């Protein structure tokens, strides 16, 4: 019996390693390929870090590759605006539907999941007249793409926030806060949002990840975000383009990791909360 169990455990361990290795190879191999390509010397002979040195020199990048700079700044802006707008729209709506209009929850879910079924080109065709007005009235900044991106991230954000709202008793918490004198804004800001932190973060992760990797809509709207800039750069300087691609992946990873570090864990157990407690003696 004990021998059988030990064999079973060994087999499980082996399976775990096999799965982990396959996943690592699947994800890391392309990255290694990119690294290999960007460090090849002239004519494929030897190794050089010239491409990375160029990329690390902000002044050179700004002057020699203005499109890249423009695309990077636009993507960063979009990665900030999109989750903020998405949260401003979705969190109050979903909370209100849960509290006051539970009969509408199916409709809201349907609307939020709809973008999953709409191809990007159809979305662009549908949004073109809207954007014509937006550009006409408000200017043609790339940042207006965030409106389309909010629609794109709705299905993922909805799922995350819905899971978060199901995990807490929003009704009781908000009623408790109201009875203590809180306005609806205070209820949202001080009670609901902090308790949706994990859900809000994962919705934001997904939004940021989607925005940083979005190409189709920006390209079809002839707007320059990082992906479009990289694509265009790839036509004239493949090495820099691939290096930027690799750097943007690392950048996205660092951003997501930082977000998860700031917000992970239960109330009072996140790494930041632990640090804070170490600094502040309890009264």
């Amino acid at each position: 019996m004990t021998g059988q169990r030990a064999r079973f455990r060994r087999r499980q361990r082996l399976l775990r390693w096999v799965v982990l290795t396959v996943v690592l190879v699947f994800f890391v191999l392309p990255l290694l390929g990119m690294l290999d390509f960007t460090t090849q010397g002239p004519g494929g002979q030897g190794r050089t870090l010239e491409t990375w040195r160029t990329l690390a020199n902000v002044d050179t990048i700004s002057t020699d590759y203005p499109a890249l700079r423009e695309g990077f700044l636009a993507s960063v802006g979009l990665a900030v605006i999109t989750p903020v707008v998405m949260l401003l729209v979705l969190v109050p709506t979903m909370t209100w539907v849960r509290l006051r209009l539970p009969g509408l929850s199916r409709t809201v879910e349907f609307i939020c999941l709809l973008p999953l079924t709409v191809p990007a080109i159809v979305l662009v065709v549908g949004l073109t007249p809207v954007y014509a007005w937006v550009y006409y009235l408000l200017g043609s900044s790339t940042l207006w793409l965030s409106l389309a991106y909010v629609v794109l991230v709705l299905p993922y954000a909805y799922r995350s926030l819905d899971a978060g709202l199901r995990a807490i008793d929003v009704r009781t918490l908000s009623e408790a806060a109201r009875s203590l004198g809180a306005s609806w804004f205070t209820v949202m800001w001080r009670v609901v949002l902090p308790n949706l932190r994990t859900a809000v973060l994962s919705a934001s992760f997904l939004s940021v990840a989607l925005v940083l990797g979005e190409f189709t809509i920006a390209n079809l709207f002839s707007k320059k975000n990082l992906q479009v800039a990289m694509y265009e750069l790839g036509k004239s300087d493949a090495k820099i383009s691939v290096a930027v691609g690799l750097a943007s992946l690392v950048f996205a990873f660092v951003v997501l990791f930082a977000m998860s570090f700031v917000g992970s864990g239960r109330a009072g157990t996140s790494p930041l909360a632990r640090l804070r407690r170490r600094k502040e003696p309890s009264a």
Partner: protein
Amino acid sequence: MSATATAQGTPVQLTDLRRVYGGVAALDGLTLHLEPGELVALLGPSGCGKTTALRCLAGLEDPDSGTIEVGGRDVTGVPTNKRDMGMVFQAYSLFPHMTARQNVEFGLELRGRDRAARRARAAEMLDLVGLSQHADKYAHQMSGGQQQRVALARALAIEPQVLLLDEPLSALDAKVRVQLRDEIRRIQLEVGTTTLFVTHDQEEALAVADRVGVMSVGRLEQLAAPADLYTSPRTPFVADFVGLTNRLRATVSEGRAQVLGGSVPLLEGSAGGPEVVVLVRPEGVTVGPAGDAESGAGSATVVSASFLGGHGRVVARTGSDELVTVQVPNTDVTRYRPGDRVVLGPRGDAALAVSAD
């Protein structure tokens, strides 16, 4: 509990409240007055409207008609956050991302109290509920009973005009429930806040309240002191709902019901007529071993005898095939075995009679 409420607090008046959900009246003309500093318990089965009444008073529900006055001021249309009421919920309602102290301070912060004043008041309140040493704990680090105590401290910290308790003990285990209900009463008497306590547990209601209101289908059946409610129920529903009741056929003559070979005086509101059913409490019936020749109106056969801790219970079947439950001292339970012949009799307490039809 016989303690009387202190004469502070605010009077509350609910007048002719109606609230209909999908054609069903949750409140059907409820009128209720709470004296300053009084603790009134609303008792009733699920769906009787007791929680709706409390939620209307809290401002969490809007009545279709009727008025709510607190301290003489009409607050019927006033939003919840402007009503100045503390509330403890059935579900655990502590904000999970805040410590016990931060929870208690929350309402004070909204009222613009400075940090030092908040800290002092939170410490005072946590001390009142005996949880000073748990001030820095989060909800998930506390037991259910501790969470409800903090919720009580949080509700009282803002010095509300009215304290609303919506079945705050029902999620707790039996022992903690008894401890906490006694504590709630102690604290309520200490602070003197007018309190509405909603519960479906009659023992809880009878134990803590100055007056108990029994509700049925959106209406208040009876509002009385616990002892009066128990001994003098005004309606069959109240007699049935509060405590155990034997329903025994009886004949009426000269204002007394002849039952189990004896007679009992009838309560006001009893049905008239020669044939009635009287509602007699188990402790309103006596039981004793039968002699050899006894076969009178009170003679019966024991069906079961149970030991229930503080007391015992004997169930016997009479000659007219009625089952009668009798409360006996716990030391007497072993004297009765199924099949034994016994003699039952009324103790003589006044009882309510209802129509025999």
